[in-house]
């Protein structure tokens, strides 16, 4: 990759050397991102046990998947995890983000501590909570608290609640920091004008802060929603999809069918659905937010 260093200021050579710079990243992304994406669609029309030969099988996997009551269930659980974790995380992170955007000194210390759960791997977090919530060896029996001594991971709704709690525990601080950045970009003068008009704190929050955070809310929600499709490792270690199928989200369903039941065809079909759900959600959120970023300059002026 030697760039022509002299002359040709705006010619094709200059542009050519620029394009070369993107090639290594593009090549790797195509090999391990784009090709697998196409591959997952192709594999959904085959039958493969993960070891032997791959045979073309037409629509067999799709028919099997679409007739399986496990699919609507997995879709429903995925949707519930997404919706509930969004509904829990968003108000809490906005509130904390607004608070953290203030200027007191100790807030910086809080921000540092908040971030620590995000450093832990999903495996570590899941293992910790498994030990913490154990009905025989966990915190509940240790403190002699009946309320904490439950079979947290053994009952469907409790296990679902634990998954939501652990997700929030790990990610609320991260989103609070995103909102903190958003709040800091709201011009101070808007608040001053509102104060002159006699607006109180609550009024200012709903009339200025919240509308001005619109694009931050969309960014953060996109990360939450698309991210919730990939809570594989956390749920895998915490509940392994159980009890029964109570927390068997799509990603887990894909893994279990593919790598535990050795049915790569149906697992690929699930993966295709996972990709489509992710794309649809991202497009939907972009539609809600409006395409043009410069739009935000005119609104609420």
């Amino acid at each position, binding site marked *: *990759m*030697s*760039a022509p*260093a*002299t002359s040709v200021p705006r010619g094709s050579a200059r*542009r050519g*050397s*620029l*394009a070369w710079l993107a090639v*290594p*990243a593009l090549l*790797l*992304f195509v*090999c*391990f*991102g784009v090709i*697998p994406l196409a*591959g997952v669609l192709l594999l959904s029309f085959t039958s493969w046990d993960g070891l032997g030969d791959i045979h073309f099988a037409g629509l067999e996997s799709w028919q099997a998947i679409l007739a399986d009551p496990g699919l609507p269930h997995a879709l429903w659980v995925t949707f519930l995890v997404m919706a509930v974790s969004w509904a829990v995380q968003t108000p*809490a992170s906005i*509130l*904390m983000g*607004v608070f953290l955007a203030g200027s007191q000194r100790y807030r910086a210390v*809080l921000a540092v*501590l*908040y971030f*620590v759960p995000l*450093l832990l*791997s999903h*495996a*570590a977090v899941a*293992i*910790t909570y498994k030990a913490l919530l154990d009905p025989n*060896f966990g*915190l509940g029996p*240790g403190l002699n608290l009946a309320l904490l001594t439950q079979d947290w991971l053994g009952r469907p709704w409790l296990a679902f609640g634990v998954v939501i709690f652990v997700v929030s525990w790990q990610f609320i601080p*991260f989103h609070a*920091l*995103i909102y903190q*950045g*958003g709040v800091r970009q709201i011009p101070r*003068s*808007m608040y*001053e004008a509102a104060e*002159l008009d006699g607006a109180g*704190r609550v009024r200012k929050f709903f009339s200025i802060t919240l509308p*001005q955070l619109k*694009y931050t809310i*969309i*960014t953060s929600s996109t990360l939450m929603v698309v991210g919730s499709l*990939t809570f*594989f*490792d956390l749920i895998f270690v915490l509940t392994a999809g159980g009890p029964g199928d109570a927390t068997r989200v799509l990603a887990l369903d894909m893994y279990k069918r593919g790598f535990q039941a050795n049915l790569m065809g149906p697992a690929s079909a699930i*993966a295709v659905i996972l*990709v489509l759900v*992710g794309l649809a*959600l*991202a497009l939907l959120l972009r539609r809600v*937010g*409006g395409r043009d*970023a410069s739009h935000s300059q005119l609104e609420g002026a």
Partner: protein
Amino acid sequence: MATILSTGPERTAPPRPRPASGRVTERPNWLGSLTAWIWLAIVIVPIYWIVITSFKTQSNYYAEHPFMPPAEPTLANYRMVIEADFAQYFLNSLISTVGAVVPAVLFSFMAAYAIVRSGGASRFLRWTNSLFLMGLAIPLQATIIPIYLIIIRLHLYDSLMALILPSIAFAIPLSVLILANFIRDVPKELFDSMRIDGAGEQVTLWRLAFPLTMPAVVTVTIYNALMIWNGFLLPLVLTQSTDKRTLPLALWNFQGQYSVNVPAVLASVVLTTLPILLLYVVGRRQLLSGLTAGFSR
């Protein structure tokens, strides 16, 4: 990603007489601070519990109050974890993380530079950019089955290289997005003066853009390192033998083996988190400011 732009005259309120300085002072935000402090407790208590419990002996764990520090602190749990080959797993994690992060950040930087500098003039680069943006919306875990197939066909199954290659690919879209945002902020005049001095794109890239966007580079490096160090699905699917295990996978296995010995399991959690905690202490300022800036734009 959608953005908020704070500057621009149309955003500011019409000029009014400035209020008396006393009126702008902030009243305490009770609801916000209450939430923040309660949340701090929710974050800190489990972490505190992990740390103190990891120094208890297994017999004392049941006898002592869970929130009291151990009466007789012991390092036996840590010794047990280290003897369970965690040095090997640590090395595997280190190799695969460094091996993936360094090329991922360098390649992403080159691509981000090209995308910003061409300013949409090159169709190839515009197309590349939209491909990366599409990559942001796709849950890449969904591609694990074809990746497994590709890795087998490349005869890389059960090697650290099998973890490195897909990790680089997964890291590229977000890294390019954040780095491009920052390269865009470098004043155009600086690029122009480099060109007048006769410097080629390669020279401009490494001598001008790279040093000037160092904070963003550090942010992206730490973020990717965190993601890859903590990665679970790729090692789970693409490796098999014990000596290729990375730390998260080792944790999971250790827990399966010693689930009754809570202090030992928690010692393994502490031990695997320490390196990333050190990295956080060193790069904290960069990471926090870089991430908020990168996502809040």
